[in-house]
C-alpha cells in the first residue's frame, strides 16, 4: 500500500475530504439556485437549458424535465408587447452571452405548450476564468404591474371624462345663450357670458394638459401616425389661433420656406396640440400690436417648424429651465398671472413621443423663436 504523508494526513483522506467539500459546495450552490424567489434558468454556450429553478418551471407551467437539456429558444418563444416574435439574437440571454454584459428587457414568454406570461428579464453571462460558459436569466411575472398600469390609464381617462362632462354642459348652454337660442341679450349680459366661456376654455385646457402630462409620464399616450401635409394640418388650427391673436391686435402669419414636400408621417392631433401651445404662448407673451410668424421649413429627412414672435423674450438666466415642470419666466409672472408652467413641459414630452426635438432662441425685450423638428418617418412610432 503506497502511503504518502502530507502534513500528517494521507492523500486518500485528503482526496475524500476535498470530495466531501466539493459535493457540499455543489449542493449548497444548487440549493441557493433553487431558492431564488424569481424564475431562474441557465443555459450552456449552445443555448441549451442546463438548470431550471422551481419558480421558473411554475411560471412557465412546465416540468423541469420538460426544460432541462432542450434549446431555450425552442421551448420558450419571446414575443414583444407589439406582438412580434423576437429574433434569438435580440433576446436578453443571447445578448448577455455575446456581449459579456448584463441585459434587461420586458416581453411575453410563450411556451411550446401555449402558456403566455409577461415577464421582466435580467440576463447575465456566466464566465469561468474569463471563458464564457453560458448565461443565466432571472425573470419575474409582471402581469400585476401591467394590470395596475392599465387600471391607472383607465382611471385617468375616466376622471378626465367625468370632469369634462359638466364643463361641456356649462359651455354649450352658455354658447346657446350668446348665440341667441334663448332670445336677445343686452351687451352686458353677453360680455358676462363670454367671460364664462373663456373661463371654461381655460379649465378645459388645464384638463387637457394634465391628462396629456399624465399619459406622457406613464408612457400611455396614444399615437396614431398617418401621412399628412404638415402645413395643411397647421392651417386647420389657424382660425382659432387668429381669434386669440386678433384680440391683442397681433398679426399672425404663416409661410413655407423652400420647395420640398411638406408630407410627413406623424400624429396630427399631437402636432396640433404642440403648435397650438407654442403659438398661443407666443401670442400671450407678445405685447399688443406685435407679430407672430409660423415658418415651415421642409428638409430632406425632417420638417422644422419655427414660431417666432416680437414678444418680451426669455431672460438668459431662465434658458435652462424653460422646459421644466411648473417653471414660469420671472419677467412673465409680473405681466401674465394666468398660466400653469406646464405648457412647454408638455410640448417637450409630446415631441419626445413623436421622436422629435424642440428648442428655442430668445433675446429678452426683442422676442423668441421656438423650433420643433419632426422626422419624416420615424421607426419609434408605428
Amino acid at each position, binding site marked *: 500500500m503506497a502511503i504518502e504523508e502530507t502534513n500528517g494526513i494521507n492523500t486518500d483522506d485528503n482526496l475524500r475530504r476535498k470530495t466531501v467539500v466539493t459535493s457540499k459546495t455543489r449542493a449548497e450552490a444548487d440549493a441557493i439556485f433553487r431558492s431564488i424567489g424569481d424564475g431562474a434558468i441557465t443555459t450552456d454556450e449552445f443555448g441549451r437549458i442546463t438548470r431550471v429553478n422551481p419558480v421558473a418551471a411554475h411560471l412557465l407551467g412546465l416540468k423541469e424535465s420538460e426544460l432541462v437539456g432542450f434549446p431555450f429558444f425552442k421551448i420558450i418563444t419571446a414575443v414583444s408587447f407589439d406582438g412580434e416574435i423576437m429574433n434569438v439574437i435580440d433576446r436578453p440571454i443571447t445578448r448577455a452571452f455575446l456581449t459579456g454584459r448584463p441585459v434587461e428587457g420586458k416581453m411575453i414568454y410563450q411556451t411550446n405548450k401555449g402558456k403566455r406570461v409577461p415577464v421582466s428579464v435580467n440576463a447575465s453571462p456566466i464566465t469561468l476564468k474569463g471563458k464564457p460558459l453560458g448565461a443565466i436569466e432571472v425573470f419575474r411575472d409582471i402581469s400585476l404591474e401591467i394590470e395596475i398600469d392599465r387600471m391607472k390609464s383607465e382611471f385617468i381617462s375616466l376622471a378626465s371624462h367625468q370632469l369634462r362632462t359638466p364643463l361641456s354642459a356649462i359651455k*354649450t348652454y352658455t354658447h346657446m345663450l350668446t348665440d341667441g337660442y334663448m332670445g336677445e341679450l343686452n351687451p352686458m349680459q353677453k360680455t358676462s357670458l363670454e367671460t364664462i366661456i373663456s373661463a371654461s376654455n381655460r379649465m378645459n385646457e388645464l384638463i387637457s394638459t394634465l391628462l396629456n402630462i399624465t399619459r406622457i409620464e406613464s408612457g400611455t399616450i396614444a399615437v396614431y401616425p398617418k401621412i399628412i401635409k404638415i402645413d395643411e394640418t397647421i392651417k386647420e388650427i389657424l382660425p382659432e389661433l387668429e381669434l386669440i391673436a386678433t384680440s391683442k391686435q397681433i398679426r399672425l402669419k404663416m409661410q413655407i420656406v423652400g420647395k420640398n414636400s411638406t408630407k410627413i408621417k406623424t400624429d396630427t392631433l399631437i402636432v396640433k396640440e404642440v403648435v397650438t401651445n407654442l403659438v398661443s404662448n407666443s401670442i400671450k407673451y407678445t405685447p399688443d400690436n406685435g407679430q407672430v410668424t409660423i415658418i415651415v421649413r421642409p428638409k430632406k429627412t425632417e420638417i422644422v417648424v419655427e414660431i417666432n414672435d416680437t414678444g418680451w423674450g426669455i431672460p438668459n438666466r431662465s434658458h435652462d429651465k424653460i422646459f421644466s415642470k411648473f417653471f414660469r419666466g420671472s419677467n412673465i409672472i409680473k405681466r401674465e398671472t394666468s398660466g400653469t408652467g406646464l405648457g412647454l413641459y408638455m410640448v417637450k414630452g409630446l415631441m419626445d413621443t413623436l421622436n422629435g426635438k424642440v428648442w428655442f432662441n430668445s433675446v429678452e425685450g426683442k422676442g423668441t423663436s421656438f423650433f420643433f423638428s419632426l422626422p419624416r418617418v420615424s421607426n419609434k412610432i408605428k
Partner: protein
Amino acid sequence: MARILVVEDDKDLNNAYCIILRHQGHEVVEAFDGKEALSKLTDFNPDLVLLDLLMPIMGGLEFLQKWDNAKRRKVKVLIFTNMENSPEIAEAYKLGASRCIIKSWTAPHNLAKVISDTLNNKNNKSESVKSVA
C-alpha cells in the same frame, strides 16, 4: 335637412344638442345609451348618428359593433366624446365612424358646420378635430 339620432347619456347635453339641431332645421330623435339607440334605428332611419362613446348600459363602441354592418355603412357616424387621445377613438374609426370631435371644445355653431361637412362627405374619415369656440 337631415334626420339625426343623438345618442348621449348626459341629459343636459342631450337636450342642448337636440335644441341646437332642431333650431337648424334637422329632424332629431334622442337616445340615452347604445341599447336605446339600437331600438330606435329601424323606425327612425337616420342620415347621421351623433354618438357619445362612454355611456351606461351600452357604450358607443358596443353600439357600433351590434349595429347591422350593411345598414351602418349607409349612415354617417359622428363621434362626440371627451376622451381626447384615447384608443377608443381609433377603435371607433375601425368600426366605421366618419369623424370624431371633442365635446368640450365644440361650440354650437361649430357643431352645425361639422354636421353639414360630415353629411356632405367633407373631411370624411379625418382625424379628431379640436374645434374651439
